[in-house]
Structures are given as C-alpha cells and as structure tokens.
C-alpha cells in the first residue's frame, strides 16, 4: 500500500471516478424496462432488472461522496493539485519499467499468442521471456530484452491484423508455428550472447530455458489428456503430441 498522504490523494481521484462510474450505472439502469411485461413476467418496479443496479449505483454514489469528502478534509485534494502544479513525477523509473515489462509479457501472451499460436510454443516463449526478465536482476538487460520482445510482438501483431496467420496455416499445416519458433530461438540466442562471459549468469540462463521447456511439456499433456481440456490453439507441437499419444495408446 501507499503512504497515508498518497492514499488520500489517490482517494481524491478515485472518488471522482467512482462518482462518474455510479452515474453511468444509474443512467444505464434507468433505461432498463421497469413496467412492461418482459420474458413472460409481469413487470412492476420490484421485478425490474434495474432494481439491483439502481441500488448499487446509489450506494456507490453515496460511498464515493463520503470518500471525496474525507479526502478533501484530510488534504488529499490539496496534495493532488500541488503535485499537478509542480509536475513532479514521483514515480520510480525502474518500477515503471518493471511494471511495463509485466504488462507487456502478460498482454502479449494472452491477447496475441494464446488465441492464434500453438499453446506449447506460446507458453515456451512467454515463460522464457518472463523468467529472464526478472531472474537475471540486471536493469540493462531488462531494458534491452524488453525492447526486442516488444518489437517481435509488434511484428506478430501486424501479421495477425492482416490475417496472415490463417492464410499461411491454410497453405501448409501449422506453418505459423515456424516464425514463432524462430522468435523463441532469437530470444534464446540473444540472451545467450548477453550472458556469455559471466558463469553465474550462464547458469541462470540454463535454468531459465530448461524450466521454460519443462513447464509446457508437463502442462500441455496433463490438461489435454488427463483433464480432457481442449487447448486454446492446437498447432504443430500439440498435434505432434496427439499423434504420439494415440500411437502409444
């Protein structure tokens, strides 16, 4: 949590957001059916689907108001305007970088790769990137790999926007897995060249790539065959697993 003073400042902003949010809820709720028959149920005010949202809206408005009053009283509003005037970003730059890195890693994994790329490869790449990002504990490296990873993601994003992946996959089975594999290998090689001269780091590098191979190697079969969960996107590697699994069975 933050300091008391910072908290009151944050309260000032959130209370205003909350009040706006509650107003949206109220406006939306008042548009819901209140009287006419809907879904075979005679509609009176107390049956209306708007009943609970109205309650929530009013309560949030009330609590938001209390929060606002409290933050103004305790000097949160004053502090807010002070910081705006001074424009002193008191944010810690390293922390911001780390936060961005986490968001980029999670975001690319969930929004870019899982829906379109073989599940095994998605986990492999994400995990390797996410581990070396923090495990190495090296700010310079963190910045460098983040930039390279982001550029890679941007390239994939462009490919996906133009629907290249489905065209390529139609031409040749699971062909889209190949650029992904190359991307992973690039990250691997880049990290390796970075840690070449440091035995301590080399050990960490080894651990990182071994773990990022082992984890999907356990997760995919367990979910696919033991828990019977169809994986989000089953590309080349998962299909290879299927083939092996049914051959063994």
């Amino acid at each position, binding site marked *: 949590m933050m300091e008391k003073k910072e908290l009151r400042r944050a309260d000032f902003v959130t209370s205003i957001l909350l009040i706006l949010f509650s107003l949206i809820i109220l406006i939306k709720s008042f548009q819901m059916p209140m009287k006419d028959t809907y879904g075979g149920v005679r509609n009176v005010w107390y049956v209306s689907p708007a009943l609970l949202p109205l309650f929530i809206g009013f309560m949030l408005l009330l609590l938001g108001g209390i929060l606002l009053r409290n933050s103004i009283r305790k000097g949160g509003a004053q502090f807010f305007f002070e910081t705006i005037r001074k424009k002193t970003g008191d944010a810690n730059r390293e922390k911001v970088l780390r936060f961005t890195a986490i968001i980029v890693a999670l975001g690319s994994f969930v929004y870019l790769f899982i829906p379109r790329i073989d599940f095994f490869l998605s986990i492999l790449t994400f995990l390797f990137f996410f581990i070396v990002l923090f495990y190495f504990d090296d700010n310079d490296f963190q910045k460098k790999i983040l930039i390279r990873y982001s550029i890679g993601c941007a390239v994939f994003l462009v490919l996906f926007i133009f629907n290249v992946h489905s065209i390529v996959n139609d031409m040749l089975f*699971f062909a889209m897995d190949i650029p992904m594999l190359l991307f992973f290998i690039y990250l691997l090689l880049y990290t390796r060249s970075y840690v070449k001269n440091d035995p301590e780091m080399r050990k960490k590098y080894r651990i990182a790539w071994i773990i990022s191979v082992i984890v999907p190697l356990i997760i995919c079969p367990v979910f696919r065959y033991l828990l*019977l969960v169809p994986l989000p996107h089953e590309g080349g590697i998962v299909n290879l697993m299927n083939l092996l699994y*049914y051959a063994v069975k």
Partner: protein
Amino acid sequence: MSKKIFIAALVLVLAGFSAFGQAQGEYPERDITNVLVWGAGGGTDTCNRVVMAEMSEILGVNINVVNKPGGTAGSVGMQDAYSREHDGYTICGLSESCVTASVQGAWDKRMNVWDYFIIGGSPDVVSVTPDTPWQTMEELIEYAKANPGEVKAGASGAGSIHHLNLLALENGTGAKFNFIPYGGSAPSQNAAMTGEINVVVTSVAEQAQLIRGGKLRALGVLVPDDFPFGDGVLPTAFDVYPSLSDYLPLSQAIGFAVPQDVPQNVKDVLRDAFAEAMETDSVKEFGKKNFYILSGKVGEEAGKVFDSLESNFAWTLWELGAAKVNPADLGIPKP
C-alpha cells in the same frame, strides 16, 4: 551444438508433420469428444454420460464428455462443437432448450444444421405442496380461473421447457397463475418446500423423490397418457382438459448431435452404436429408475422432433417479447 541438433529436429518434425496431414483410417480410430452445452450434474449431462459410457465400449474408443456451458441456451458449447472439424470426432451433447439460441441472437444458424440422436426425456408434471387444498388438477385450475394471478406457480426461468409447459397449461385451460421464475428445477422445487410457491412445474425425473416422499402432491402430467410411477400411475391432465392437446405435449428431448455434413459412413457407425447402447440393460435401467421415457430416435425422425420444438419455442418466446430475433427472419415456420 546439441542445441542446434535439437532445433533442427524440431523444425524437421514440424515439416514432417505437415506432410502427415490427415491420414485417416477406419472411423473411429481415436478418442471422441462430446462437447456438452450444459453444466455438469444436470439431466442432459447425466443422460449423456450414461449413454457415452456404453457407446465407448461398443466403439472401442474413449468418449470424453467436456462440459462447455455458457452463452445463451448453450450457444457457447454449440458454437465450439460446430467450429471443430466435421469428422465425427466431436459431437455435441444438447437438449431441447438449445433451440432458442438462434432467436435469442446467440447462434446464427438454424437448428437443422445438426443431425440428432435423441436419448429421451422426462414428462413434465404439475404438483402442489401438501398443505394446499387442491386434490385434483380440476380443483387447482378452477381455483386459478376464479382467482386469476393469485396462485404462485414456480418453474425454471423464462423460456425454459418447464415455463413453456406452464404457459401451455394456462393457454389450454384459461387459468392464470402468478409465475415466479427460478434459476433451475432444483431451486424451484426447494422453494415449493419452503412454502414460497404453491405450484411447481418440473419433470417427473426431477420431482420423483419429492412426490414419493410426500413433500409434493402430483396432480397431473402434461403428456396425453398416464405415466407409470411406482406402483400406480400419474394421471394425465389431458383427460380433464382435452383442449390442452392444442398446445401440448412439449417434451424434453435430451441427446446429442453431429453436424449435418459429417460423412454418411461416420453417421452410420454412430447410429449403430447409439442404437446398440440404447438397448443395453444399464441404459434401460437408468431410464426406468430416473423416470425417463427413452426415445432412441435418429436421423430424419429426430430432426422432425427438433424442428417442431424449434418452431414452438421460438414463436412462444417471440410472442412473450423475450426473443431478440424475429423467428420469421430465420425462416422458422409457425407452429
């Protein structure tokens, strides 16, 4: 060095795999997945699991039942099952309520894209709580006619099979109830036991224990014939109110389906296995014990059942104002 070999091997394998393509042998050669559109533990789930277990023995492969609930009227599961390869390795476990998905705007196709296998269903029964004065269907209906909107009748939510049965009962007899919707059959029955509602409409399968235990008094089933129950029968409501036959019966149809364009030889294999499974003792025993009327209908016959269900459900919902899409736009004929 070793890594280069590893990478080379991976690339090779990928390339080799694409050449593999879809070498196919005799159906079925691997596990079949049954994407079930309702949650685990419900009637559709239980029936499907019993039949799947028998079919998997007959076919010699596993049939994995995967619950994929969500969306409107099971649309998420249906969409998922339909979007997979139409090769018979994915089947879709569903029930009559799914037919409303298209008028609710959650499914852009009509229900005739499926080829059905109907396991069966349990007829709906109208019951009252034991502390109420009504001993017969006639007494209840006459009271509800004389005091419209006073009798509280519960069933699962708007547009469910039980709600539609209740509506048909109202339309066929002219009685008027105060309809209280619940999240499912179990909560509505529970509410009857707490005394919150006086009349409850659910299936015999769901009510059997409560009727036998004396917690509910069954007044009549909403099918044309008396329904054997324990040592006696549950009387049909049609005898007293013949006009019901204009609106009923509207029966549950639990089963599964494959897309219409699955190869005929695959369909044949599935139909044979299904027919054999329906004849096994364990399925028959299950049906009898749980008060299901087993059907076993497949192909065109089953399609007709779902066609009539679709038109009935879709138009009723449209008239209730609870449908998003006009059934006429979808080409669904009026019942």
